[in-house]
């Protein structure tokens, strides 16, 4: 009996940890941040997380496209250096 209660307390620690992590995820995702005070189901959080990551991946693809065209027009090293300087002034 003692071992069973020990097992359930270990698994409830993991459950608490997961619940805590899932709520952190909920705060991070813009779609769900407005519903901060509602309880959103884990499956919903996971779904929105996947959608968000996919949209971020798409943005990186699009930006890489745009940059490949914009940077094609840099002829000289000095143009390149100017662009890099603007990167540094973030």
């Amino acid at each position, binding site marked *: 009996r003692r071992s069973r209660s020990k097992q359930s307390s270990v698994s409830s620690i993991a459950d608490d940890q*997961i619940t805590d992590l899932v709520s952190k995820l909920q705060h991070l995702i813009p779609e769900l941040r407005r519903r901060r005070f509602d309880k959103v189901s884990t499956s919903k959080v996971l779904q929105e997380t996947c959608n968000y990551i*996919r949209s971020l*991946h798409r943005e990186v693809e699009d930006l890489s496209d745009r940059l490949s065209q914009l940077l094609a027009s840099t002829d000289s090293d000095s143009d390149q250096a100017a662009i890099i300087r603007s*990167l540094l002034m973030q």
Partner: protein
Amino acid sequence: MHLPHSTLKQEFVKKWIMGLQRCKFSNKNMSILERKKAIKLSADTAMASARKGLTCWSRALISNPDRPVPTTTRRASSACKKIVKRSRRIRRTAKCGAARKGQITRSIAQCLVRKRTQILKSLIPGGEFMNEVCLIEETLDYITSLRVQVDVMRSLASASARASEPHN
């Protein structure tokens, strides 16, 4: 392990500049597609190396930068839709007792969580080897890093667009 946003951004910018200079992206003999791949590769490598080996996803991304990322998983999303449809049908049938309905709803929720966890694993680099706790911790870090990457790339794109406008 968790870095403040500004530190992460500085690390990313530093590493990306190094990467861009190395791949000589302004080489005129490059096609636009090659240039795009070089830019994306240098951005991904910079994002991963900014974490300095502290996260699983960053190590996985550095060791396998060209892994195909699934953009749509049609099979998984149609399976999820079937589960949701089935749950609605079951809830409508009056024959089920309340306890039985609760049981079915719970098992459907568990099924959805399992399926969506699988999808998430396919999206995080190295995700297929992670347990649940690790997966969510890595996801939090990965999303933060992706946002920094998008942020910096976007400001470079607008700066370049402004620079290429004809001066009056």
